[in-house]
């Protein structure tokens, strides 16, 4: 007899989905969250107006130096005085980088994890993404194809609420969308000019996980339409954007099958060599240092790509001396992120008598065209652009003038500016890895992470070309004052899309998981956070984590019901 049917390690983007699907299938589920409990009514700060935010919402500089020296430089637009409780203190959660490398490990430990702070961009992977590794030989072949996951994208989009337009693009398949946030008049013009000049390229509204036409299911969870406030980084008391806190965890809890325990850091997963099954997890309470063991029939690791790999590596036994489910030696390897650092902006005329109302959550998206509709590229794979065309604001006072005219100039919209920024695919590489430090531990006695990740020539070349493309598109659109800073690649990890550290594959000798997110070595162990990703594609990955989590949870429930676990 086990304590629970299933244990889900982590309550974030993917863990919430694992918990919801397993609980809705009738399993008794325990969710273990290493961080503290978030109570939205208490901890979301989206209703705090600007004049109630101390010090322009800036964290004191000495406090940044002491506690947020990785988080703040990594994601300064979101780490604020009124949101700092959503980000880890670096001095309490240290890690190391191999000499000559940098890694930004940006994260929050609390209910819902980074599903509270994510950028909410939600795109399906396309058929080409599942075939990419096989085609060019980087990484191993995905054991699934787009057709295998398509209906699960439908499933998670319908529940989560994704706003977007149906664009009919094969590389970025349409889904179950709620109405898109329409393009601005300048974006429509930009779209028309770019698509005329570059017939293989498209400019579409960003697809974002914001409700614009709430369904009955969403209303039943207390969720409502996006209020267009752009307060998302503070949490959303309207529950309008998807997060575990707003959507999946409440759905799991209302089944009465789900228990969440906070401050529960998983140290290791127990393995029984006789049954060849995992039996439960060892946990340390972060507040009391008490240790616990919880048993279950199946275990889902959703701790995030890096933490999941670390838990596996910490779970050593005679049967798995290199770490649990790691007979392939691929755990911790192939760590990927997306890469940015190629941007361009310019002014677009013709809209001087127009402005916008509301602060929408997304802008425009230019789906990948490189090596899809254009095949003349000096690099493999490709990138998408995210951007906007909106009136330039003047909130920071950096224009000439004093007095009444200067004061009132802030109330009149400035010229319209187009800005686009590339998000490129990083190739899988087994030498890009996270390992456990041989001696240093955190205050709970767990080894700290050591990162050794570098971008390859392909990523460098790709971003140089992306910058040229960005300039060409802005010029084709008739922009003036086109400005594109020299390419400056973001640090690995900085896009907060870490993935690949326990990859799926067809061969147990070269991959950790099979095509159902199930460990090759251990049938009742599943990994459905970003660790499973066999390649990174260039789309923001959360929607894929959701879809694969839901699929794996239902597969596991089927196996359990059939007595196959």
């Amino acid at each position, binding site marked *: 007899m086990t304590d629970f049917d299933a244990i889900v390690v982590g309550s974030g983007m993917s863990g919430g989905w694992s918990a919801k699907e397993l609980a809705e299938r009738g399993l008794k589920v325990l969710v273990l969250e290493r961080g503290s409990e978030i109570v939205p009514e208490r901890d979301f700060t989206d209703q705090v107006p600007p004049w109630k935010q101390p010090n322009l919402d800036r964290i004191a500089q000495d406090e940044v130096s002491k506690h947020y020296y990785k988080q703040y430089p990594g994601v300064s637009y979101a780490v604020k005085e009124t949101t700092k409780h959503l980000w880890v203190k670096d001095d309490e959660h240290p890690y190391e980088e191999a000499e000559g490398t940098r890694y930004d490990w940006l994260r929050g430990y609390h209910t819902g994890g980074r599903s509270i702070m994510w950028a909410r961009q939600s795109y399906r992977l396309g058929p080409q993404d599942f075939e990419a590794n096989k085609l060019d030989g980087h990484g191993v072949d995905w054991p699934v194809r787009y057709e295998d996951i398509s209906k699960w994208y439908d499933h998670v989009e319908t529940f989560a609420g994704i706003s977007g337009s149906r664009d009919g693009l094969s590389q970025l398949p349409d889904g179950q969308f709620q109405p898109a946030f329409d393009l601005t008049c300048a974006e429509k013009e930009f779209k028309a000019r770019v698509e005329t000049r570059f017939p293989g390229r498209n400019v579409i509204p960003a697809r974002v996980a914001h409700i614009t036409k709430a369904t009955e299911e969403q209303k039943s969870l207390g969720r409502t339409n996006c209020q267009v406030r752009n307060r998302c980084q503070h949490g959303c008391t309207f529950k309008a954007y998807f997060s575990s806190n707003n959507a999946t965890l409440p759905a799991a809890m209302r089944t009465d099958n789900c228990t969440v325990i906070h401050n529960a850091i998983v140290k290791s997963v127990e393995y029984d060599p006789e049954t060849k099954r995992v039996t439960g997890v060892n946990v340390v309470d972060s507040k009391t240092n008490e240790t616990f063991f919880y048993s279950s029939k199946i275990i889902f690791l959703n701790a995030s790509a890096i933490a999941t790999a670390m838990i596996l590596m910490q779970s050593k036994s005679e049967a798995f001396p290199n770490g649990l489910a790691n007979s392939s030696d691929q755990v911790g390897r192939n760590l990927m992120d997306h890469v940015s650092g190629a941007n361009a902006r310019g002014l677009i005329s013709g809209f001087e008598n127009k402005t916008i109302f509301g602060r929408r959550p997304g802008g425009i998206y230019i789906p990948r065209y490189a090596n899809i509709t254009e095949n003349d590229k000096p690099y493999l794979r490709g990138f998408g652009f995210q951007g906007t065309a909106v009136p330039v604001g003047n909130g920071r006072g950096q224009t000439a003038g004093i007095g009444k005219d200067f004061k009132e100039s802030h*109330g009149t919209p400035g010229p319209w500016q187009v800005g686009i920024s590339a998000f490129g695919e990083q190739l899988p590489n087994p030498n890009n890895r996270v390992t456990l430090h041989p001696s240093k531990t955190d205050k709970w006695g767990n080894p700290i992470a050591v990162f050794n990740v570098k971008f390859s020539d392909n990523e460098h070349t790709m971003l140089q070309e992306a910058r040229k493309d960005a300039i060409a598109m802005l010029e084709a659109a008739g922009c003036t004052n086109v400005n594109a800073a020299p390419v400056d690649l973001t640090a690995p990890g900085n896009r907060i899309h870490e993935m690949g550290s326990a990859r799926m594959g067809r061969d147990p000798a070269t991959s950790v998981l099979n095509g159902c997110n199930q460990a090759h070595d251990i049938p009742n162990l599943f990994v459905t956070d970003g660790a499973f990703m066999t390649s990174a594609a260039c789309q923001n990955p959360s929607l894929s984590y959701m879809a694969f989590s839901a699929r794996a949870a239902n597969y596991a429930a089927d196996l359990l019901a059939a007595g196959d676990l």
Partner: protein
Amino acid sequence: MKTRREVLQGMIVSIGGASMLTAYGGIAAVVPSDQLQDSRFYSADELALVSRLADLIIPRTDTPGALDVNVPGFLDSLMADWASADTQKTHHEYLTQITSGLSSSFVTLPDGAAIPLLEKFDTAAYSGRGEHSGYRALKGLITQAYFASEDGALQEQEWVAIPGRWDPCVEIT
């Protein structure tokens, strides 16, 4: 004869009736000028300079001005509570630079003399020649502090807490 400090204090109160250095970000409440010594960061001279600049850059119009919403007090708190020792030192240096760049008697000049002087200084600061970086930094803080105040956000900028809808193309009439 009044001391220089008394002249400045009287001037500040007469300009805006603003409280100096009450709680940051709050709506101005008129307090006696002798509370100026509650300054936690600025010296009296610095406070007078910041106040004069704030008033000239964002004056009271049909909406409250920078002094009405206590921008100098806000910046005093910002520097005391937010800024590191390095930033504090730099900020003091900026004020010294501004004083020497304008005129040591700038804060006592009447509007008719102060405005043309500051306009010329401001034009040079934004000429792209990299001049007066300290002034640009202070002007940025004054502006941000003003629009982060309740009156600045709601009355001047017409900030809407809950737009509730997205209109991607609004005709300006």
